[in-house]
């Protein structure tokens, strides 16, 4: 639609004028903030962008959600190009490939669009800020810790069921986890395999099957992806391995509730994905309004989440993940 031309020009000149941050600048209304998740129709990203929608509503901006049906970098590029053509004010994107989206993102920035990445970062020289759900280190450690708890005092074999072989997040968490496992505390744990379910429900399901056939003594499956953990839990809960093999990792409470209640899963973790989108929207608005530029140390207010400080390399860390158990799971609905 062509009704928002005015706000465009406003925001354009606004950012142009202030190369330096003005912490006291008012948040603009009517900002066009577009979310581009890794793919549409992924329940996890839907929760994330849902949080973004709430934030944009609070900011009285224009919310838009676009995205490909497949999690490929190239289809994201077409959408970024479209968003540039539509002259959005902020693009909030979860990059499917840190480099492939770069040229387009830089074109966007050249067109005075603020680029915030969330969930999965793009190369740091082609975005203005990155909303990190938790530090890579923190998640990796937490995964190792949960694995140890589940395996019990005797330790034993554990396996990882990840997303795609080239998923940036998962790979860095697994790296940290591997380093962690080398420590003496974890001596009794043996990581026997990293399998990939491609974030496809069925493939993950079959990979879980394969793991149990190949490693009869497996004690724990650690799945650092919401699709993987749900599929693994589902397989275990319906097979003879129930009660013998534990499943843990990162999962959505709604998807996992059933398996927590039937004791297939005793503990898993996740940050609140809705908060990521929420924070990203506020960060984008703050930037488009000139409150921040993305430099280290700058502070801004993110609505109900309170104040955040930009870290090194333009990273904004959401906070520590929440652990879910039978006791607390009913308090969450996402």
């Amino acid at each position: 639609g062509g009704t928002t031309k005015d706000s465009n020009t406003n925001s354009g000149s606004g950012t142009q004028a202030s190369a330096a941050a003005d912490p006291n600048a008012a948040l603009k209304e009517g900002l066009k903030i577009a979310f581009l998740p890794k793919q549409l129709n992924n329940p996890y990203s839907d929760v994330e962008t849902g949080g973004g929608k709430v934030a944009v509503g609070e900011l009285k901006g224009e919310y838009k959600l676009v995205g490909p049906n497949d999690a490929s970098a190239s289809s994201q590029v077409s959408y970024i190009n479209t968003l540039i053509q539509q002259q959005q004010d902020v693009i909030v994107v979860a990059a499917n490939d840190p480099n492939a989206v770069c040229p387009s993102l830089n074109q966007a920035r050249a067109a005075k669009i603020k680029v915030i990445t969330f969930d999965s970062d793009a190369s740091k020289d082609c975005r203005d800020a990155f909303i990190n759900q938790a530090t890579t280190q923190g998640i990796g450690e937490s995964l190792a810790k949960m694995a140890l708890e589940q395996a019990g005092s005797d330790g034993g074999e554990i396996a990882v069921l990840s997303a795609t072989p080239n998923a940036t997040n998962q790979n860095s968490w697994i790296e940290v986890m591997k380093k962690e496992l080398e420590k003496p505390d974890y001596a009794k744990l043996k990581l026997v395999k990293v399998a990939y379910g491609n974030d496809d429900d069925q493939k993950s399901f079959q990979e879980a099957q394969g793991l149990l056939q190949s490693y009869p003594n497996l004690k724990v499956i650690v799945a650092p992806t919401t699709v993987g953990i749900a599929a693994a839990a589902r397989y275990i809960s319906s097979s003879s391995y129930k009660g013998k093999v534990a499943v843990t990792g990162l999962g959505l409470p709604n998807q996992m509730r059933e398996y927590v209640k039937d004791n297939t899963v005793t503990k898993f973790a996740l940050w609140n994905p809705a908060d990521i989108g929420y924070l990203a929207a506020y960060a984008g608005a703050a930037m488009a309004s000139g409150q921040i530029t993305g430099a280290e140390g700058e502070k801004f207010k993110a609505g109900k989440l309170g104040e955040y400080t930009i870290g090194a390399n333009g990273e904004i860390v959401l906070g520590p993940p929440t652990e879910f158990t039978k006791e607390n799971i009913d308090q969450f609905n996402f």
Partner: protein
Amino acid sequence: MSDTRPAWRSRLTGWDTIIAVLTVLVLIIASFSVENFGTSRNFTFMVLDLLPIILIALPMTMIIVTGEIDLSVASTLGLTSSMMGWLWNQGLSIETIIPLCVVIGAICGVVNGFLITGLGLPSLAVTIGTLALYRGLAFVVLGDGAVADFPWNYTGWVTGTIGDGAVPNVLILIVALAVIFGIVQHATPFGRSLYAIGANAQAAHFSGIRVARTKFWLYVVSGAVAGLVGVLWTLRYSSARADNGAGLELAVVAAVLLGGVSIFGGKGSLPGVLAGVVLLTALQNALRLEDVSGQALNIVTGSLLVLSVLLPNITTAVRGNWHRRKLRQAAAR
């Protein structure tokens, strides 16, 4: 024999002409009614979006005209992209890598060609197999990694425009290749033989056409072009990855069929296919600018594909009925 008018008229109502007119109409309507559609930057984006489909469609058209199919093209693209990343990591220069990648694509084509013409296996089955094989090899080569640090002057050339104007650099490539393929397909003995092979391979064989050899070379060319597109794809996204171009094969086949090429072989023209590709890309671009969701784009693509064959059939049927009724009326009188 001297009567050429009906031939001329039948050509005018042929599907490739209709689709060309339709394409122009869509372009015109979109430039007026869709905001930002007509801008030069959007033109560049569109050309970049249709680059892989249009290039792969060139040899694919020939292959489908001979009654065969190549579903492995997107996987060949992925494999060359992987190889490109791997070779780059080995420290080869980009000037060596690019021709090497085209050769790798051609080798994929040689394998297809050998299985299909040498062993006489059905191409649909073979290329479903190599679709999985080449994609798998792509992952073997590069695994989960991505290689990104290609030289800027190359990546920039692919996404850039001539003299910073409105004409993308790759458009030269597209036009040059399209002209070459067009001439070969429509104005050479080789091109003629493709139609004969597609419509009746045995009769072609009896006419002295080397059916197997011709098909073999088509697969080699198809592989080489897919390899070239693998290079261009990698440079455009400055990212060599094993999953590059996944699923592109169906888009290419859809575009070729939309352009009026018969899936049974023997019929179709390259201009029709080019129009088909442009129509699809332009429509998707315009709809995206209008915030139509990707899901709805699926429906549009699918419907177009079916309608592209259905509509001409319906018009012929209606015309035939009308003609018959007229005859009956004349007889009744």
